């Protein structure tokens, strides 16, 4: 039986970049071609900062984690053989989780969190102008961290479920379950027009 499923835009997995692959760029950098890193950096900067920001809800920390992530790449932490982008998000994810754990251990975090959640200092206001985006950001922020990370990696970064599983150190099945749970949660948290869909 022959059939095909339409692949919607948000589900479309990016093919090879128009140019050298991530691995080729990194290898070029290691061979002394420093501008190659600029390309690699530009390719992933917004994605990494965006992911980490949505995990941590803090711009400074997001940038620190992004810096640390790229530093580890240049320090040779990535070994050829695995997926580069999965490695990159693995580092960013683990650093984010570390920071979240650290926050939870300190009373200081509670004060900061309350301050950040106050309307006058809401980070959404400085980053998200659009109401829909704002609502979605707030709903994502209310998800448990592992479910939030799964949604951001699978839908936001359009990584394969296998890559998400690798990044989060869990099984494919857990990724699928978390996505399903997260969607149900988000449906309850989001206004009807977004949770009902447009088509």
């Amino acid at each position, binding site marked *: 039986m022959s*059939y095909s*499923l339409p692949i919607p835009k*948000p589900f479309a997995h990016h093919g090879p970049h128009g140019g050298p692959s991530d691995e080729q760029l990194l290898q070029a950098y290691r061979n002394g071609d420093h501008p190659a890193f*600029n390309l690699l950096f530009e390719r992933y900067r917004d994605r990494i900062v965006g992911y980490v920001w949505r995990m941590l809800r803090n711009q400074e920390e997001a*940038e620190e984690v992004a810096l640390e992530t790229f530093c580890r790449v240049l*320090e040779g932490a990535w070994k050829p053989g695995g997926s580069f982008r999965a490695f990159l998000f693995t580092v960013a994810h683990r650093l984010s989780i570390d920071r979240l754990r650290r926050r939870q251990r300190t009373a200081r975090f509670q004060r900061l969190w309350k301050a950040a959640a106050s309307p006058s200092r809401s980070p959404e206001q400085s980053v998200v102008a659009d109401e829909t985006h704002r609502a979605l950001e707030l709903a994502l922020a209310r998800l448990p961290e592992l479910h939030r990370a799964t949604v951001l990696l699978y*839908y936001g970064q359009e990584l*394969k479920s296998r890559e998400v599983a690798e990044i989060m150190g869990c099984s494919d099945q857990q990724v699928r379950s978390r996505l399903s749970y997260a969607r149900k949660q988000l449906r309850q948290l989001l206004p009807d027009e*977004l949770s009902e869909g447009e088509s």
Partner: protein
Amino acid sequence: MKQSGPDPKVEGRMVPLASDGTLAGLRPDDLNHQERRALLRVITSKNGSEERSRALALAQAVSDLPPPTTELHPADVLSLLKEREQARLVQRWRLRAGVGLFLVAGVITALLVWPGPTWDPGTLQLEARATSQGVRRAVGNGSLLPADAKVELSVAATGSGQLFIVERWGYDSTRVLLHGADAQDGPHRVTFEPSTSGHSATYQAWLCPPGADRWSQAACAREYLRLDWR
């Protein structure tokens, strides 16, 4: 709609079949053949179609979230990397300097504290024979001898080192009878007449570490005997 049948594979991996609700939120390229067919059935049903639409809308919305503005540049990464390398270099030098200092301190301490190679004196034996009026006999500690007796002291050691025999009498009178003889040459004999009469004298044999030019209480082994002269 639950799936049943043999375990499917996604890119060679064994994965249990997903439920309809789970399937609706997944991309086709993450599904195996059987799941894709199931998804096709799901999206052609009314409920499944709505579920799929909601999932697509959510995925689209999450994907469309704008990245936060950031001023990060590659130079920031390279600069941080350079700082770290310098810090590591300094740390490495500090570590090396610390290790070097520790070693030097250790050597100095060892030189100051170490008593030198362990020296085993073995056993030291001091014997005496006295000859008086043509009669020769062995004498021991505390023996009483006539004033005209000639005494022969014999000292022998099983270990190596320097042998000394010292005669002490009175308040602080001392006479060296044997000075720095090599213990490995065999027993050494010294014949003498007493330096005093009507008193006691003590004869001390010292075995000192090789190279010693004098005896000392701390470093040498000692044997002695006391003789009384009429």
